[in-house]
């Protein structure tokens, strides 16, 4: 986890800024068709870049790869430090993939201020990629906050609902409220490092670098405080029940593209697995912390599923199903074992195909019926067989049918949960049943039975662009469902390192003696792939070693 590999080419910086630059160039164009094509080209090239990163990524390695580091604000120890490991690399691919699909989806569904829309969307992509590639906590926070600005405009200007003004403001203020506490937590981490560095005469004495922070002891009681502060930032964004109230509003009032991103890219839970668990291992294993997190996760599963059961509006149903799925992710994370973490990580990726995919289909339905309310559906399977088929495929993936990606992720989570404590697993399983119930029941009412009154005219089935979206999602669903090995290999190394760190506790607890870490260095060098070069960012006693 502490080892860093460089790539010799700043591919992450390119990945990070390419959409933003593309979006700015878009602003210079005037012709609507040209703008659409250019947006597609930018998103497509970004996807190509992301695929290159995925192909060049060394699987089964815990190392931070493609590392880039430049000092940004040295007096405060803030650096522009980018890197990817097995935990974050898949999210970058997912973000690029979904953005391409959103551009395709928006082709003829967004009708006004196209230029601004695509520029905002691409800027949003940059900030999301930024969240995943940042290894410096302040840099991470910068992108985390920056996300709000394009999101705010996307919801407000292109949202479909009448209450979108309110939804956008609610979204920004809620997440901001959480974020300020997270910032406090981050600053406390820095302070802790500062105290330790001063006591050990280490310069520079301030750092926000994740890898540097990993190497110093944090007293357990302070860890718990920091954990809860960061927790507030993450759960508002995630959003975890009971901090979720903005989510249904935004998903319904905002544009489909925004809903896909919010439901598909799990930034909040990523924050837990990226920062909270490794930085605060003692706090994460604290009995009361685990109990609270598990309870919240299980409550979210059951609450989300039950509320989803009675929703007449498809997008509202999806919002609550998303909350329920997020509960699974949290349960997997705080099972704190290999299967649980692996399952959570895979499920976060899966949701980007299944839940986000369902939002695309909700968008297709909306385009046909100008509503996603049950009253305007019924018997549609006869009219739009292709749409109905894809809705079933992606829906079944979302409820975790074997053979689809949802099954692999949820199975691993349940395995991990049972291993941690059988009761957690037992309660979580009920969520699977509820999930099947709400989706299948809704599907039956929407797609079969009598046609709604007044629907006499023919409605078109999926057009080419929509089919492309649905097919590419289905391909991913079956790929992960039937042959998850490549994905699991990518994440295994980092997940194993995380489990090891949780077992051993923070380095502090081993007395912070350099000897222990030197041993570990020997181990990690043996693991390192021959074509990789180890890089130590700071010539200080704190040179990163393997843990």
């Amino acid at each position: 986890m502490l080892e860093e590999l460089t790539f010799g080419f700043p591919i992450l910086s390119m990945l990070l800024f390419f959409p933003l630059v593309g979006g700015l160039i878009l602003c210079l164009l005037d012709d609507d068709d040209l703008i659409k094509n250019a947006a597609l080209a930018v998103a497509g090239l970004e996807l190509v870049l992301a695929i290159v990163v995925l192909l060049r990524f060394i699987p089964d390695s815990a190392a931070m790869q493609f590392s880039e580091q430049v000092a940004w604000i040295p007096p405060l120890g803030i650096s522009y430090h980018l890197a990817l490991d097995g935990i974050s690399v898949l999210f970058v691919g997912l973000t690029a993939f979904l953005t391409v699909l959103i551009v395709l989806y928006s082709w003829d569904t967004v009708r006004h201020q196209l230029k601004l829309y695509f520029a905002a969307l691409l800027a949003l992509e940059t900030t999301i990629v930024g969240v995943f590639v940042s290894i410096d906590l302040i840099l991470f926070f910068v992108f985390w906050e920056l996300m709000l600005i394009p999101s705010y405009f996307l919801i407000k200007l292109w949202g479909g609902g009448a209450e979108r003004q309110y939804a956008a403001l609610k979204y920004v203020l809620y997440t901001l409220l959480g974020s300020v506490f997270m910032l406090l937590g981050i600053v406390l981490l820095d302070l802790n490092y500062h105290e330790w560095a001063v006591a050990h005469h280490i310069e520079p004495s301030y750092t926000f670098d994740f890898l540097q922070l990993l190497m110093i002891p944090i007293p357990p009681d302070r860890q718990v405080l920091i954990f809860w502060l960061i927790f507030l930032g993450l759960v508002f964004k995630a959003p975890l029940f009971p901090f979720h109230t903005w989510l249904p509003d935004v998903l319904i009032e905002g544009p489909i593209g925004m809903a896909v991103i919010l439901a598909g890219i799990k930034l909040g839970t990523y924050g837990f697995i990226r920062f909270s668990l490794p930085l605060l291992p003692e706090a994460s294993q604290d009995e009361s912390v685990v109990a609270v997190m598990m309870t919240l996760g299980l409550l979210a599963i059951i609450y989300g599923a039950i509320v989803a059961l009675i929703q007449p509006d498809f997008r509202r149903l999806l919002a609550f199903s998303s909350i329920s799925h997020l509960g699974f992710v949290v349960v997997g994370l705080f099972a704190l074992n290999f299967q649980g973490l692996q399952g959570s990580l895979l499920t976060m990726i899966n949701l980007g195909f299944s839940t986000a995919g369902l939002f695309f289909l909700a968008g297709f339905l909306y385009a046909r019926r100008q509503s996603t309310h049950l009253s305007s559906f019924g018997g549609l399977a006869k009219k739009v067989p292709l749409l109905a088929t894809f809705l079933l495929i992606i829906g079944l993936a979302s409820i975790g049918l074997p053979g689809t990606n949802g099954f692999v992720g949820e199975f691993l989570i349940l395995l991990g949960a049972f291993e941690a404590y059988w009761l957690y697993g037992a309660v979580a399983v009920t969520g699977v049943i509820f999930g099947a119930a709400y989706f299948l029941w809704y599907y039956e009412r929407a797609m079969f039975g009598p046609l709604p009154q007044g629907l006499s005219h023919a409605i078109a089935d999926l057009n080419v662009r929509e089919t492309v979206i649905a097919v590419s999602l289905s391909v991913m669903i079956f790929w992960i469902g039937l042959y998850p090995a490549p994905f699991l290999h990518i994440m295994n190394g980092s997940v194993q390192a995380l489990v090891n760190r949780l077992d051993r506790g923070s380095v502090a607890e081993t007395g912070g003696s350099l000897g222990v870490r030197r041993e570990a260095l020997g181990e990690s060098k043996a693991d390192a792939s021959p074509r990789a070069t180890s890089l130590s960012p700071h010539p200080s006693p704190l040179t990163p070693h393997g843990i």
Partner: protein
Amino acid sequence: MTFNLSMSGSDLLLLLPEMLLTVWLCVVLVVDFAMPRLPKVRLAYLSVGGLATVLLNLLWFDRTGVTGTLFADMFVVDRLAIFFKILIVIATALVILVSVDYVRRFRFFKGEYYFLILMSALGMMFMASANDLLSVFITLEFSTFGFYVLVAYLRDDVASNEAGLKFFILGVFVAGLLAYGISLVFGETGKLVFSDIAAAPPTTGLIIGFLLIFGALGFKIGAVPFHSWIPDTYHGAPTPVTAFLSIAPKGAAFAILLRMFLVSLATLKPAWVLLMVGVSILSMTYGNVVAIAQKNIKRLLAYSGIAQVGNILIGLAAGTKMGGDAILFYLLTYLFANLGAFAVVIAVGNLIRSDEIEDYSGLNRRSPFLAMAMLVFLLSLAGVPPLAGFIGKLYIFVAAINEGLYTLLVVGLLNIVISMYYYLIVVKKMYINEPIDRTPLPISTPMKAAIYVCLAGTLILGVYPQPFIDWAVSATLMFSQFTAPAALAVPPTVLPFGG
């Protein structure tokens, strides 16, 4: 105490920036009298040119490290003074640029306006150099005289007259408090120079004296509970004067506050930290909460300014050298963001003759440039990364947390959320609402120049703050020997900010 007022050539050199400015303001006044046909805009350019020479002079001082004291330690030139003088000169130049269009509204005394602005700037430059309590009194009054006239400059406008009167009466009252406080401190210690007072034992008289002085300076910076003049004065005064008032006097007063609290009162820190925490919390919370209800953009910025002062006071509450650095850096970020926001308000106000937030509806359609600039400035004021305001807030929070001021910090963070709400309301009006009138808004060249400078400042300070932080750090080096030992856990030679 003996006063030696004889001056050598090198002593005079220390006064060069002030003397230059004095020459320039006389030139402006004389040119205005001598050439009545001259377009007044030339006077503005003349003033900016003059300020540029002063700025060059100050930058030269900063580079070569000119330091020294004059008039029996009453007047000091050190890195801190130079920093604040540069801040004031930049603010003055920007204010003059944004005034050009506004001045056309005045019916009389258009030329004298620039003279008065320069005179206030001169007073504030002296404030930045004030090193004893007497010079604090003289310079503070000197700088305020110009403002008394400027605030009431719209002669036929009731609000402007009301603003001027309120500002004047309260200002005079505060001058009385200041004089009384100074007399108490002098009576207790027999000393006037800040560093001499540092050795004095804390007596009741000394503490009451300093409280009174703090009240007077609190009035200057507009901290709660000394803020009552701010909303009406900001609202009624000509907008460029409001913009000037909102930054330059605050900067100059913070120079004095820093010298007073980090030098004279450094040993008494445990006693005044609580005072600072209280004033800071009150200012932030009051400013932000009341700002929410404002319908007028100038009043909104007035209250947001009160809250920003609360934020800056967090740095003073930290009471360390790092707190001082953070204040300096924060003031720089505030200079560009706040002046920029006011520049947009002036540009819009000149064209639509209104400062109501309602009239900002659809600004994006009428002038995308102004709307975008306003968005950047407001987000920077709110502290959204990666703009300047974020780094400023972060710096100040880190300084405070190093001193364990957790309560203050939590209040500060919550206030960011509150402030975001009302800034977003303005953003919403500009971008989402439909414009009532769709005519595009043209912007004059000097205004555009000022807005570009502010935009550049806001972005550069956010994205590449390093050189500016270094500058702030080197400007406050003198405090390391006075602040409490806790701040010196690291020996000065290896201070993390040494470079």
